[in-house]
């Protein structure tokens, strides 16, 4: 009996003009968003590869630790084509600097200009949240009160079918008729993605994709159940429709736009200049410490520092200079790391209220199924701000490991930190103090001869350069991002709200329908 009822609902829904029109729109948009998103992904993938190659090239050429500045890369995630969130399908990198830690990783994209960012983007989840949810409402708003108006409800109930079976048939039939179009557009989007050779899904991605489909089903089911509940609560379909549409407008468009604005002006934003001020004080303090150290340990005469100097790397300096520099580094680098940690803390304190505004938007999403659904999909695709912060935290942890490792190697107080000169490498000026002022002048014959010698040495070096030994560099771990279990934990509140409200709507429909007056 239930099967017959479900079949009747399914056919009544699927063979209507309104479904055909809505479906045509939805498929068109899905194709558009998936296709353009896929093109953008390829573009971002190329940039990511380019950036990686540049980095590989760079570290193969680096010969002193000072110049290393390791980078951690996060590849563009194919899932973010369907669920853009903050990442827009771009990869990201996190660079380890001595003096600076960033709050979030740096996206590798050309699209983060002010201008492009201020335009709102659309993806598969938008299509589901706006268009398919509308379809769910259209299917549900007159399912009960419409039949009453047409008088068919009385006929239906005259049969020896329990009311619970009738309403269950309506519910399941309606759910299936909204899930079939969803499956269709999901497959269309997936096919477009798979047609792109740059897109490769890992096992984890497949689980997340299935998750995305399931929460889309749950979300649409919830909206359908809600409209069914409204239908069961009203006597005529016009009222039911108006109520449903206003709900849709408030939940879909209203909350999405009002919540961020309220968050933006409801939370106090500490001005950026406060950070700049504290930063200046911090570095003044650091410079004071260094100055005090240098007063105690005077720097050798400038003439000892003659040689080549490029981006923190020294060559052909006098051993005395190297010895002093290494001692200074042994003191200064530790202080510098401390300072950069403190700087990160004040920067974070300055920026977190801004992040808090963005996170509030996600938290308030429980007020609207549309927004809850979108936030859940971003969490699945790992494209929320919280995911970015999580990633950065992992990167910070690695940064600590990296400097611990360097410290363990004794590199900080060693000349290998800033020079690749071999211990027996002759300096540019063997004994600066015995040199007469005339000879020490840059254009003297003596200096010209030494310069020519240095050029020769440089050429010899480039022909047999050896890079740093990075074989025991700390491992990054499998992935900087959240694993599936962590993502699911993150999603629990949103999922609970969706499930509970779905359950509540179903209960409401059941209860109302059992006492519903089918009379005209």
């Amino acid at each position, binding site marked *: 009996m239930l099967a017959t009822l479900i079949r009747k609902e399914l056919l009544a829904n699927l063979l209507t003009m309104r479904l055909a029109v809505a479906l045509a729109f939805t498929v068109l948009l899905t194709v558009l968003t998936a296709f353009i998103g896929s093109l953008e992904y390829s573009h971002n993938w190329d940039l990511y590869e380019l950036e990686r190659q540049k980095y590989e090239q760079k570290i193969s050429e680096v010969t002193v630790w000072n110049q290393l500045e390791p980078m951690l890369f996060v590849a563009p995630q194919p899932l973010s084509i369907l669920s853009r969130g903050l990442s827009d399908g771009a990869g990201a990198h996190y660079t380890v600097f001595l003096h600076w830690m960033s709050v979030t990783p740096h996206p590798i994209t050309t699209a983060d200009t002010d201008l492009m960012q201020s335009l709102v983007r659309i993806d598969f989840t938008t299509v589901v949240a706006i268009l398919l949810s509308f379809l769910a409402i259209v299917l549900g708003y007159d399912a009960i009160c419409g039949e009453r108006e047409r008088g068919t409800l009385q006929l239906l109930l005259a049969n020896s079918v329990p009311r619970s079976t009738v309403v269950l048939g309506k519910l399941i039939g309606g759910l299936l008729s909204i899930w079939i179009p969803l499956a269709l557009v999901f497959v269309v989007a997936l096919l477009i993605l798979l047609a792109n050779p740059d897109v490769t899904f890992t096992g984890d991605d497949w689980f997340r994709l299935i998750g995305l489909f399931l929460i889309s089903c749950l979300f649409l089911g919830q909206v359908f159940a809600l409209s069914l509940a409204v239908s069961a609560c009203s006597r005529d379909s016009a009222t039911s429709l108006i109520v449903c549409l206003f709900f849709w407008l408030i939940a879909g*468009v209203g909350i999405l736009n009002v919540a961020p604005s309220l968050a933006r002006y409801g939370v106090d934003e500490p001005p950026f200049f406060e950070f700049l001020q504290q930063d200046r004080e911090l570095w003044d303090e650091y410079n004071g410490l260094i100055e005090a150290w240098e007063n105690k340990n005077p720097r050798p005469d400038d003439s000892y520092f003659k040689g080549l100097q490029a981006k923190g790397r020294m060559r052909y300096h006098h051993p005395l200079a190297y010895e002093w520099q290494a001692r200074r580094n042994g003191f200064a680098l530790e202080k510098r790391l401390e300072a950069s940690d403190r700087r990160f803390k004040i920067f974070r304190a300055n920026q977190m209220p801004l992040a808090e505004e963005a996170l509030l938007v996600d938290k308030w999403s429980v007020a609207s199924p549309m927004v809850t659904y979108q936030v859940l999909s971003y969490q699945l695709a790992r494209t929320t701000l919280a995911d970015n912060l999580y990633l950065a935290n992992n990167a910070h942890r690695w940064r600590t490991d990296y400097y611990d490792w360097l410290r363990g190697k004794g590199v900080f107080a060693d000349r290998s930190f800033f020079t690749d000169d071999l211990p027996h490498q002759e300096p540019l000026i063997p004994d600066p103090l015995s040199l007469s002022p005339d000879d020490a002048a840059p254009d003297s014959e003596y200096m010209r001869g030494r310069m020519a010698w240095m050029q020769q040495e440089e050429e010899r070096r480039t022909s047999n350069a050896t890079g740093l030994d990075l074989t025991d560099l700390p491992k990054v771990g499998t992935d900087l991002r959240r694993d599936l279990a962590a993502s699911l934990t993150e999603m629990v509140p949103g999922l609970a709200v969706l499930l509970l409200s779905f359950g509540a709507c179903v209960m409401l429909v059941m209860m109302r329908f059992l006492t519903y007056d089918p009379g005209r």
Partner: protein
Amino acid sequence: MLPLFFVANGVIYALKIERDVAEISRIDSEFAEKISEVSELNGAIGRWYRLTARSTGTEFITEGGANWFSDTYWVNAQSGNRSTEYGRSRTTNHWIRRFEIVDWTLIVRLILSFLCVVMAYDLISGGHEQGVLRLTMANPISRGAYLAGRALSQFSMLMVAAALGATVSLLILVTTGVLTLDAHILRGILLFFLGSSFYVAAFLLLSAGVSALTRSSATSLVVLMLTWAVLTVVIPQTAYLYGMQTVDFDYDWNDKQWDLRNETENALAQDGISLRDSGRKDFFAQAIRHREAIRQFLSGRDADDADSPHVLFLPDYVSKKPLDSKLIPHFQQVPLSTADGVAAGVVPIVILILEAALGFFFAFTAFLRMELAGGS
């Protein structure tokens, strides 16, 4: 419903304007303090001048890119140096810029147009389904007059609702003391409602036309809602994707791309000009003119001093005489005149009027050709 959004608008902008005012005055006083340190021509030439764009005052009506675009121009008088630089001085939260802000434009664009559809989807088909339409048409009344009458009554109802909502929002803004109504703002409001009325008319007439064409309220509603979603949500959002694909963008900047970027940004800024009254482009032009004014002032001062080597504009090669920092020209942005604002918005305004006219012809012909027989 409509007032609800306007209340939200009032509250948000009361908070926002308060913050903006505090921030701008802080920026201004900071800069004034720096400038007061200048005591001779030398210092005046070597330094950067911060020129800040004012708030337009009508941001609660239409925000445009005011939240994101650069609002500050730094200029210096020195020759042979980079002479201009622009950026943003006020705090911007880049993490939530994927969201729009609730200004009046958003309310009209999304909510009012939605109400148009809800009010008018059964404008013709409803009467047809109930059989009332045939009875009405049996009277000596032309179809055109019937359509015009019904559409006009809906139109005036919506506009009155919008005006009431706007009044609520204005009340909040005025009573919290962040806004003082002046001629400039009133003109903005008037222009806004003029533009909105064309927009509302276009949506109403479109709905009426579809209603007549489909002859069934349910189908009419589905078609209209989808059209609404595509016109107001989907097409604007697709602009980003379209922009991404049509403009080729190289990772490494070069001059050509800077030009391109500036050009696009200016074009976008111009879109907001008609009602935002201070276009970004105009602000930049004013900033450049102000740089000239500073240079002229400095060269005048230098010419007065016979001992100066007169090598303009290089620090250390100009007059060493003391200079009163208060005399340096002070930048005050001149708001774009209404005429210029409207002129800049001519194309969109004309398109809007054309759309309303198109809606009228569509509704009219659809209704005139409608077969009335067969209503239930």
